[in-house]
């Protein structure tokens, strides 16, 4: 089975103007013929949210690489939280709080993905598109996050199998998710697949970076991160 995988993280105008670091982070890595991916968005109000987001993504990659690909991802959540707590020391969990979305795709097209907090998790299996992230009940920027205590029931989880070209999983932080038309998410997913499958990996990443940097929503300000993994053929 063949895949195309691509990700980009760009600093938003607000942090660029203030000379502050990107508070989003991402990882995308090949693993045993499949892929693992994570995106994280450090809470903007916290002093070391950049560290929190980076540590969450790096820890997730380390744990997923060391874990059997058949293991249910939800079983890794307590360990990922514990390793995150250790990685951010001496920073407090409150100062490093971050959202986290991650997923794995095996060489056979089995996909598992989970989400804690804001952002958007989209999946297409057997040609059926699904938005995994529930509708937000309140307003923007009010989110669950990795902090001092692990709460398993705060995570949204999904699993499935890629059976057709165009099946895939897309993870993004709220800098992108909050500015997408909710009614057109399936079209957005398909457009990503079409554009990325027409480019090689390096050109795909450049294209995605350019799209995120030239975001069309007026007064957009947030850091923006998106990772996509699609099945392309047998």
């Amino acid at each position, binding site marked *: 089975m063949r895949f195309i995988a691509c990700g980009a993280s760009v600093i938003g*105008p*607000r*942090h660029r103007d*203030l000379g*502050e670091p990107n508070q989003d982070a991402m990882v995308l890595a090949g693993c045993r013929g499949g892929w693992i991916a994570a995106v994280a968005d450090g809470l*903007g*109000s916290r002093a070391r949210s950049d560290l929190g987001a980076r540590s969450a993504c790096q820890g997730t990659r380390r744990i997923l690489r060391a874990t059997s690909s058949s293991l249910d991802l939800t079983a890794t959540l307590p360990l990922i939280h514990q390793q995150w707590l250790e990685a951010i020391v001496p920073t407090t969990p409150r100062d490093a709080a971050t959202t986290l979305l991650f997923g794995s795709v095996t060489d056979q097209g089995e996909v598992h993905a989970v989400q804690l907090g804001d952002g958007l998790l989209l999946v297409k299996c057997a040609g059926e598109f699904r938005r995994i992230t529930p*509708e*937000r*009940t*309140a*307003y*923007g*920027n*009010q989110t669950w996050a990795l902090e001092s205590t692990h709460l398993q029931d705060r995570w949204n989880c999904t699993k499935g199998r890629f059976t057709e070209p165009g099946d895939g999983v897309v993870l993004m932080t709220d800098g992108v998710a*909050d*500015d*997408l*038309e909710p009614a*057109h998410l399936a*079209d*957005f997913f398909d*457009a*990503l697949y*079409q*554009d990325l499958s*027409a480019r090689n990996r390096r050109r795909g990443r450049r*294209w995605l970076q350019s*799209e995120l940097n*030239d*975001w*069309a*929503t*007026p*007064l*957009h*300000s947030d850091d923006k991160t998106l990772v996509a993994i699609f099945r392309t053929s047998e």
Partner: protein
Amino acid sequence: MSSLKKFAVATPRPLPVIVLADTSGSMGENGKIEALNAAMKDMVSTFAKESRLRAEIQVGLITFGGKAQMHLPLVAAHGVAGFSEFKADGVTPMGAAFDLARQLLEDKDRIPSRAYRPVLILLSDGQPTDDWEAPFKALCDSERAQKATRLAMAIGPDADEAMLKDFANDAEAPIFKAHNARDIHRFFRAVTMSVTTRTASQNPDISTAFVVPPPDDDALDLDFQ
């Protein structure tokens, strides 16, 4: 090749500011309604001119004098060409105003989920004349409406300070007591500064310091009686 631009929302993220203004008959005394009208116009025009924004400030005005009504629907401040002045008249149906505010805050078409946390400002110079407790509880219990930042100003000595204290939920901004027309201006200058600072800040959802500017000692102003 396509572009992702066509999937992006074409409007900025809004930051709603909703004023619940007591326009009952007693507000017509001692220059209160005139001061309130001037302060409203100053606030809206400052929001409209603010250029550092990372959000679109929207303003909605709900009045309760005789009856509760949307005096100005929630719209972008830069699009407000003007609005009719408040007129002081009638009783104080504050509970009905709470209902209007809750309905607005719960309406995902008028305030989308991507909006920054709204600011709700209550100002009154007297006691509510309707059943306000149940609507106030509904506002505070609403999953969505309760997330708004609530500020309050008591105008003059007859305001129901206990109720206004219960209304305010921002630790940075305890209830403000306006003793004269200048104080009404000072309060709304602080609101204006707080909101514009939020929109230019790293995270517009975080409350900023609420600092009421000192009075102008040269100005002559009579206290509300």
